[in-house]
């Protein structure tokens, strides 16, 4: 009976779920890519010798990691327009400001976590590596680029993959501001069919398949990297 309903939901409303999943993935990919660039910058600031930059980065990271994503999202979507900051409408992308608010909130949030991933990845490299490079006459930036970063990448990439998986799951909160992600579509089908349990079951399975797939991909890449080093 349960699985019959599930099957009916999949055949009849499958495209709702897949469209939702597609949007979830778009948001997660953009957020992690943007978060990685911003996070790298933030990590550099956090490790900077310039004290104000370091403070700024530390404050940012602590704030975004110490407040709920939901609050950050609401702040950007409802709060910012009240002080005159809003995203422009774009004719060929429906609901662009809404979508942007979700992506920006997820990116800014992800940035804080990625910054810490990158910082700890770099700091986990034995300081002796940097010293040896400097003792040969390499400048700091060069030593960073050819000696430290290639080693830090091995620490950073797997953690970055985990961050992506986390963002896929966390992104379900954007449904509360009406972005048509997987969670939002699930609620839609639920409201239409009253098959609450079955709908949530389908959503959970879709989320799980996605995150499981990416987790496996990450551990495969991790093994490959460990192998190359030999």
């Amino acid at each position: 009976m349960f699985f019959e309903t599930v099957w009916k939901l999949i055949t009849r409303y499958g495209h709702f779920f897949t469209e939702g999943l597609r949007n979830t993935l778009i948001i997660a990919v953009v957020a992690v890519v943007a978060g990685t660039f911003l996070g790298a910058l933030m990590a550099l600031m956090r490790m900077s010798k310039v004290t104000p930059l370091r403070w700024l980065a530390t404050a940012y990271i602590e704030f975004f990691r110490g407040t709920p994503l939901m609050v950050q999202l609401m702040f950007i979507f409802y709060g910012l327009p009240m002080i005159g900051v809003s995203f422009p409408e774009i004719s060929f992308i429906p609901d662009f400001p809404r979508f942007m608010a979700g992506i920006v909130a997820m990116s800014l949030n992800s940035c804080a976590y990625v910054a810490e991933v990158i910082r700890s990845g770099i700091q986990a490299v034995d300081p002796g590596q940097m010293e040896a490079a400097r003792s040969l006459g390499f400048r700091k930036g060069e030593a960073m680029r050819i000696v430290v970063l290639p080693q830090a990448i091995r620490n950073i990439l797997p953690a970055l993959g985990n961050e992506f998986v986390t963002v896929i799951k966390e992104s379900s909160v954007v449904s509360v501001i009406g972005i048509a992600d997987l969670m939002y579509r699930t609620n839609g089908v639920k409201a239409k069919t009253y098959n609450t349990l079955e709908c949530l079951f389908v959503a959970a399975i879709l989320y799980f398949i996605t995150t499981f797939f990416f987790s496996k991909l990450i551990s495969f890449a991790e093994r490959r990297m460990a192998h190359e080093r030999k």
Partner: protein
Amino acid sequence: MSGNELLRVEHLTKTFGKLTVLNDISTSFAAHEVVSVIGPSGGGKSTFLRCLNLLEQPSSGHILFDGVDICDKKTDINLHRQKMGMVFQQFNLFNNMNVLKNMIAAPVKILHMDPEQAKEKALGLIRRVGLEDKLESYPSQLSGGQKQRIAIVRALMMDPEVMLFDEPTSALDPEMIGEVLEVMKNLAQTGMTMIVVTHEMRFAREVSSRTIFLDGGVIAEDKPSHELFDRPQNPRLISFLQKVL
């Protein structure tokens, strides 16, 4: 030794917070001289050596290398470090590169040496330490003694004027100490200027021409090695030698 003075240390002081590690040290090193620095742990030996190429920034004082004050903010320390090879206790081979890349990275990237030429040079040097079959190996596949021998020739790739050794055998298993000391001994015979922080008293006595006893942040005794070991004057040196010999 004034004519061919290579490195001169003037009133070098290094403090970490309230702790004074080096207290007003002055000395100098001549070209082709092999000097051992001995002393109890915490006496400032490693800090002294690390100040010579500014891996540790001196709190005050001057270090003159080839007559240039490298503590001067206007001096480009990177240029001078190219001429000062350093060997570390923990080897510090670049883990992301094989042995060959470890050796040619600095000459190719910093001195813009032709990679083929650099490879020829690396081959010549690595034969001297008997590890020519390890060129393609990664540091994780080498023993401690092998790593340290590679670290020494990596530094030699830059044709340094002086080699600084920071306890090069302290992290090695006993049976590997000999092979590294042998390389250092051969290097000393080629006329390389060497400053060696070490616990190997036999090396200090037999290979180095001069030994400095550093204790409590000051040079307590500084003499030709045989004299220092045969007729120590300073009571702290006498008790130190009694403990280690």
